[in-house]
């Protein structure tokens, strides 16, 4: 049974992949990608990776696809198409090359995979053994915030800096508190279709539920599936909903967005600095206070991720006078 399921799932994934890659319309592409996200989340559930599935659902399907769909909606036709005619030669060359190269690569890679002599990771046992020292019970959270906290820190840095980057591409270079304000809803709404009242109402009603879900995911993370990323994504989704419902978030954006954005990283680094101050390596938590540290970091990280994702969304609207 499982074979059929896997086969079906796989084929579905490939079909949707094809659709999202080859479709002519941007909207179809992005919607297909959204579907792909859902399918992949299922695949990951099938591969017994609940956390990843959650993350995919929240981040991948939720936010990532939302970004793309939004982009497709805002500019549905590929502008400038046909303006830059490629030479006649390349017209038939491109698909041919793509086909041949893709086939060759696939065949070779598949052949290699088939011959591969898999070896199970060597970190299974030490991970089990050292998990108690981290103060968390959920192994994935343990990996994220203790064993490979460095990766996580850099990665939250990436998100923060990406947010910084997109803010920098907005008015006033993301500098002043008013910057986010100015590119926000007022200019954007002029172009957006008016939001139906029902949607606005639904968004407002949905928000507390989402916030709750987010908080649950956050605090569950230490013991069970879930964690800062999933939680942050849900919270960001809540903010975006509110934004779309034209709730006035200006004060939040002006006052809180940037502090929240950097808070996670700052506290993470400072927490990492405690170790060296005590003579331990960077980013080490003593078992005694490990849980507290992880919790603080996780909470602030969630806030940071929320802010970062929200900022990405906010920055999608072009500031006026972009030229």
């Amino acid at each position, binding site marked *: 049974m499982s074979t059929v399921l896997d086969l079906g799932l796989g084929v579905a994934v490939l079909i949707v992949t094809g659709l999202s890659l080859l479709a002519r319309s941007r909207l179809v592409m992005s919607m297909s990608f959204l579907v792909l996200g859902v399918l992949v989340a299922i695949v990951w559930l099938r591969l017994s990776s609940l956390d990843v599935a959650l993350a995919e659902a929240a981040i991948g399907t939720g936010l990532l696809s939302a970004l793309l769909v939004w982009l497709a909606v805002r500019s549905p036709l590929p502008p400038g198409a046909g303006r830059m005619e490629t030479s006649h030669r390349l017209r038939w060359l*491109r698909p041919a090359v*793509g086909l041949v190269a893709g086939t060759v690569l696939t065949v070779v890679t598949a052949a290699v995979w088939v011959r591969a002599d898999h070896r199970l990771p060597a970190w299974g046992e030490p991970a089990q053994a050292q998990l108690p020292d981290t103060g968390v019970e959920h192994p994935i959270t343990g990996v994220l915030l203790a064993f490979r906290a460095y990766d996580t820190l850099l990665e939250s840095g990436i998100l923060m800096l990406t947010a910084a980057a997109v803010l920098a591409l907005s008015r006033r270079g993301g500098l002043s508190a008013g910057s986010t304000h100015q590119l926000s809803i007022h200019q954007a709404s002029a172009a957006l279709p008016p939001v139906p009242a029902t949607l606005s109402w639904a968004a407002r009603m949905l928000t507390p539920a989402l916030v709750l879900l987010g908080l649950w995911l956050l605090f569950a993370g230490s013991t069970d599936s879930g964690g800062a990323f999933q939680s942050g994504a849900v919270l960001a989704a809540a903010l975006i909903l509110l934004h779309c419902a034209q709730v006035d978030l200006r004060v939040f954006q002006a006052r809180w967005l940037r502090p929240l954005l950097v808070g996670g990283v700052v506290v993470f680094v400072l927490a990492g600095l405690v170790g060296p101050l005590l003579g331990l390596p960077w980013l080490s938590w003593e078992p005694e206070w490990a849980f507290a540290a992880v919790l603080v970091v996780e909470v602030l990280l969630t806030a940071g991720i929320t802010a970062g994702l929200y900022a990405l969304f906010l920055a999608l609207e072009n500031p006026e006078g972009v030229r």
Partner: protein
Amino acid sequence: MLMAVGLAAPVVLAAIIALAGLLSPQGALRLRRGATVLSPVTVVPAAALTLLSPDAEWQAPWLLFGTVFSLDPAARALTLIAALLYGGALVAVGWLKTKDAERGSGALSGFLLVCFTGNIGTYWAADVVSFYLTFAVMSFSAAGLVIHYRHQRARRATRIYLVMSVFSETAILAGLLLTAGAGGYLVAEAPAAVASSDHTGLIVVLLLIGFGVKAGTVPLHVWLPLAHPAAPPAASAVLSGAMVKAGLVGWIRFLPLGQGPGDVPAGHVLLALALLGAFAAVVIGVLQQDPKVVLAYSTISQMGFMTCLVAVAMLNPSAAGAASAAAVLYAVHHGLAKGALFLGVPVVKHYGSGRTGVLVTVGMVGAALAVAGAPLTSGAYGKYVSKEAVEGISVMGLGLAELLPLVAVGSTLLLMRFGWVISRADRAAPRPPDGELLSWLAVCAAGVTVPWAAGLWWLPAAGEFSWTATALWDASWPILLGLAAGAVAWWAARRRLAPAWLRADGTTVQPGDLVVAEESLLTGAWKRTSRGVELAHRGSAAVLQGGAAAARGAAARSRRGIARAESTVDSWEGSGVVILVLTATAVVAVVVWGGGVR
């Protein structure tokens, strides 16, 4: 030490004249005038040296490659006449009233002074390098004498003189280098070294050519008839009296005379050329109109005589000592006599009339007789010892001893022509006696005495004059013959018996006779060579340019190709195609072929 002073004093004074330019114009003029007046004093150390220390030597191991100057009998005699001639010339140039002085007299005196140093240096040099040094100094500073008047003739003469000097210097340099390379660094060892060298013939030829220019050997004499008339008379006097003798000295010093088997071909050639010079110069000389040109041809003729002696020394090693001593003695005599004649040219002009006229006439005739070798003159002594030296050598069946007196016939003819020409020359307004007259008188007086003294006391190898009637007759008949021939010629000229083309005004044969031919020969050769080189040059340049153009074309094509390729990857898709192809190729190449997946 005196030697060093003798060499340095003139140079120092010349330097002062040159450096006077540092002062204000008036100051410079005053200083130069003073130096000019003082200049004759600088020959005194050299003259004193010849009288006081006959075997002086001065070594300066730090100088050049180690320098030695020393005095030997030949040098002693020649130095004395050089000192006299230069002294006379300097007096003639310097001791004049300012209004009579020639323009730029400072420069003329300066060049004379430097020339003097070079000239006595060639006599004194005891090593090849200092010989070459002094010879070059003399040669090139003489150009300053020739060009003095800067008129067209002077320029041409200077140019030709310089070209010939450069050839001469180069040949001498090569010859001396070979000599030194063969171990003859010191002059005393040079003839032996040349004789034992692997390149004896080459050295001899190089030296004959090199010194031949200076000594006026045909066909290298052409500068003489051009330079002498162009230069101021005082300068001509030293040119003819002292400087041309340096070539002779060079031969005597370096040719392997008295060494080896003798009878070398070079000797025969030299002898033939010398005789040709001695006689041909007469023919050409009598056809000239300028008195100094006539004198110049006389010099060529006389130098031919002396060259004969050198040739004889080459051909007959056993007679080498006597022949070269005779040559030196003859040179001493000829230097003073000819110097007196040259100095006399302006004297005749300025003092030839009036109270001084008689004195001038007597002096000039005396000097002319001496050159011709009239009995009781120094010329007779010189000719006598020469004849003794060449006894037994014959040319084309005629004994050289019989041929040489005929030179005196020629000389007589030439000097008659000189007298004729100069007597008809313009006379300037008489002026009170000054340095010009004084110096001429001094040289005349010296001409009477010095050769005798030098020959008898300093040059014993030359032998003494035999006061026999034969000898006196030997000295007299050529003169008489010459006078007779001259009278016939004069008569013939009066009657216009000579063919129309034969005119004695320097147009039938121009001064410098062969120079035109030689010039055109040289320029032609140069043109041909340079045309050839030019062709080769242009050819190679064309090949290179063609190559460069081809390379440029190829480079431009490849640049264009690269740019086209670049424009392909300019677009994202183009770049994407390339990247994909590359990736696929890499994977296939590495994994399939390299890794062995089949």
